[in-house]
């Protein structure tokens, strides 16, 4: 089983070597003349003010929460999807399919809930 992951390891190593090599080469070959004005972040010619770490809109947090739940759903579906073809070959296609569909349907209720309750919309300053 390790053999399958040798590909992953090789790709990771190639990625690291390529990135480090190219950036090192760039460091060696390129002329370096940094000064304060040159190191300023480029914001369409405007001089930037304040910190780059501004507060995000809280709406993103709600979306992220919904996202995590549906990601866990995918994590549950994934091993079933891995064996789905085996079950089809054993003639139990409709059994496997309906089990996955029931699983999805139950969580689809959750999607409808957040949709209807308008939690996926942009949070406005005006109270509703």
């Amino acid at each position, binding site marked *: *089983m*390790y053999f399958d*992951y040798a590909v992953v*390891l090789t790709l990771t190593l190639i990625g690291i070597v390529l990135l480090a090599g190219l950036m090192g080469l760039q460091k060696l070959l390129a002329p370096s003349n940094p000064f304060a004005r040159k190191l300023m972040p480029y914001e369409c010619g405007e001089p930037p003010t304040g*910190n780059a*770490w501004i*507060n*995000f*809109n*809280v*709406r*993103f*947090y*709600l979306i*992220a*929460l*919904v*996202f*995590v*739940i549906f*990601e*866990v*759903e*995918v*994590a*549950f579906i*994934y*091993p*079933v*999807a*891995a*064996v*789905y073809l*085996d*079950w089809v070959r054993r003639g139990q296609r409709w*059994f*496997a399919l309906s*089990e996955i569909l*029931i*699983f*999805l349907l*139950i*969580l689809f*209720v*959750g999607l409808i*809930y*957040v949709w209807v*309750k308008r*939690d996926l919309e942009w*949070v*406005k*300053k005006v*109270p509703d």
Partner: protein
Amino acid sequence: MIAVIVFWTLAVITVLSAMITAFSRNIVYSAFALLGSFAGVAGIYLLLGADFLFIIQIFIYIGGILVVTIFAVMLTQGVADMNISNRIVGLIPAALIALLAGAVMLEAILRTPWPHPGTAALNPTTHAIGNAFLGPFLLPFEIASVVLLAALIGAIVISRQAARAEA
């Protein structure tokens, strides 16, 4: 031989990232350093032959938990220039607790008779888990969906008020 090199590389990445997470004065760096820690643990899962746990670790922890953590950090007011005043006061109790917890863990590690599972344990686990979901564990599998639904609605109901109040 390669497995040993890979293990030590992963272990060093995991521990160094965890140390950055713990010791960084900037909570944004702490949140991002968790990435290395999670990825290193994922690699160790793979090395132990737990391919399903590996995918879940990448998927849920790096893809989900980390994103929510970074969002939470970035949503905090003035997170970059937060000034913690009692840094030294916390250091000594923290070191004591860490030493104590470390001693308990070391004792547990030394007392456990780690049996070697042999090479059979290194077979891919994902297929077995999938078959178990459709076979003996069919009902828990479907109930997991209901649990997720409850978690989704609960999380949204709790955070909705705060989100609307702050916006």
